[in-house]
């Protein structure tokens, strides 16, 4: 299938571009921050979260997961698009016998897989940190997984949007600026009708599944529009 071919080509091109490093560093950074937080205030935090230590850890982490996700999405999309922008490789790539929708879809798949991997690492990191902090073996696995993956799924609108913007504009300043703004806005819980609030609400709830569903749906719609535009536009 064409998408798989383009996906494999994209994996090769992503080699040595710092993308994988970023994918690993982001969750490591989040975990390190909490290690520092709990390490410095261990007695205080364990006393206020007594009896629900794991939940306390997840609460502290959850503040930063959406902002890190949207930042990560912006940077990953920009780096991926830049591989082609950098030496104007679009004209070479798009003159190959492959539908443009497959090119676009493959980039989306690469970005989604990379960020998904970050989320897997976040799960592992959370578990390891909790154990290292001696929070006990009885961990709320469902909540740990929810924190790692629900905000990710709810931020698909941004994944689709920033991928589209980064691939359309040669100048990455516009998508980067928008990405940083969107990332900061995830912190404020503006309204449940605005997509920037969804990554947070997808974990804190209530009705998590609504925000996950809305995220995936809007993400898919933006992806389709982006694909359609990318398939029709002139390549210079």
């Amino acid at each position: 299938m064409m998408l798989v071919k383009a996906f494999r080509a994209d994996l090769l091109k992503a080699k040595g571009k710092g993308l994988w490093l970023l994918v690993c560093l982001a969750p490591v950074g989040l975990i390190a921050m909490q290690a520092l937080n709990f390490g410095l205030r261990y007695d205080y935090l364990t006393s206020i979260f007594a009896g629900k230590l794991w939940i306390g850890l997840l609460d502290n982490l959850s503040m930063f997961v959406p902002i890190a996700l949207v930042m990560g999405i912006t940077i990953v999309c920009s780096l991926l698009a830049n591989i082609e922008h950098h030496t104007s490789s679009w004209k070479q790539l798009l003159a190959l016998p492959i539908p443009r929708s497959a090119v676009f879809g493959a980039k989306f798949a690469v970005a989604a897989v990379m960020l998904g991997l970050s989320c897997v690492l976040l799960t592992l990191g959370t578990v390891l940190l909790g154990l290292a902090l001696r929070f006990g073996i009885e961990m709320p696995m469902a909540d740990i997984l929810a924190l790692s993956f629900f905000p990710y799924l709810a931020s698909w609108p941004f994944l689709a949007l920033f991928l589209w913007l980064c691939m359309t504009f040669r100048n990455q300043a516009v998508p980067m600026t928008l990405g940083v703004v969107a990332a900061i806005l995830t912190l404020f819980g503006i309204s449940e009708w605005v997509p920037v609030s969804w990554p947070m609400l997808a974990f804190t709830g209530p009705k998590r599944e609504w925000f996950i569903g809305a995220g995936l749906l809007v993400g898919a719609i933006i992806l389709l529009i982006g694909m359609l535009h990318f398939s029709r536009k002139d390549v210079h």
Partner: protein
Amino acid sequence: MKEWVIETSALSKRYKGRYAVSNLNLKIGKGEIYGFLGPNGAGKTTTIRMLLGLIKPSSGAIQLFGQPLHKHKLSILRKVGSLVEYPSYYGHLSATDNLEAIRRIIDAPKERIGEVLRIVGLSKEAKRPVKGFSLGMKQRLGIAGALLGNPELLILDEPTNGLDPAGILEIRELIKSMPREFGITVLISSHLLSEVELMANKVGIIRQGELVFQDTLESLQQQARGSISLRVSEAERAMVLLDGIGVDSSLAGELLQLDSTDDAVVSKAVKELVMAGHAVYRAEERRKSLEELFLRIVGEGQG
């Protein structure tokens, strides 16, 4: 009926009311090396991008291998190799990996990478990151990429742009070998006629988006007829003398110009002049170069 590999009819591309390409009727036959000439900004790259499906024509039709491009884009592009303007490459990857990134999409056999690297003479540099390559090497890598899928048609946009003379020679030899060794039809664009005349057998000249000449190179050469100029001791008297024996000539400064380049006429003229006591210092052929003709063709209509 001749089999056209590329045939466009009334192909036009309009940007904001201005025609970048207008009413273009290209006809390129199988096995030809077609030199697509024109000054910068005449619409060469726009045309080539349309041929590759990178941009959409505003009007007109493109047929490649006898099929409309917009309907059979993928199956057509499978038979086309291209290099558009300055080379595209992934600087952080080695030459092999650059080709591998293309190969994964077009499904060529793995051995083909080694083959095309050999054809363009980059086998030794295969493992080096491309960002350290010279422009000529990058350009050759671009051609290697274009050859990867065993194309029947090679579309090269200014492939010698920015190369040094040795690099130009290399690329030229490479391109000339394509129809001979692999049966590939080549469309090569350039803004330099001197470039193209050494490899092309058919020439199309585009000026301000319009095709103003399209024929064989010989026919262009015939239009650029030469003349013989003589430097003699007394040009005016010599002219009168030549007039007397029926050789047409004209004065160009101190030089006497014979319109005919026929050997018999030239030798007769020189003999007569010497016999009549004129000193003939020099007799040289001045070919009105193709370049001059080209410049005249592309210069017309520019005020």
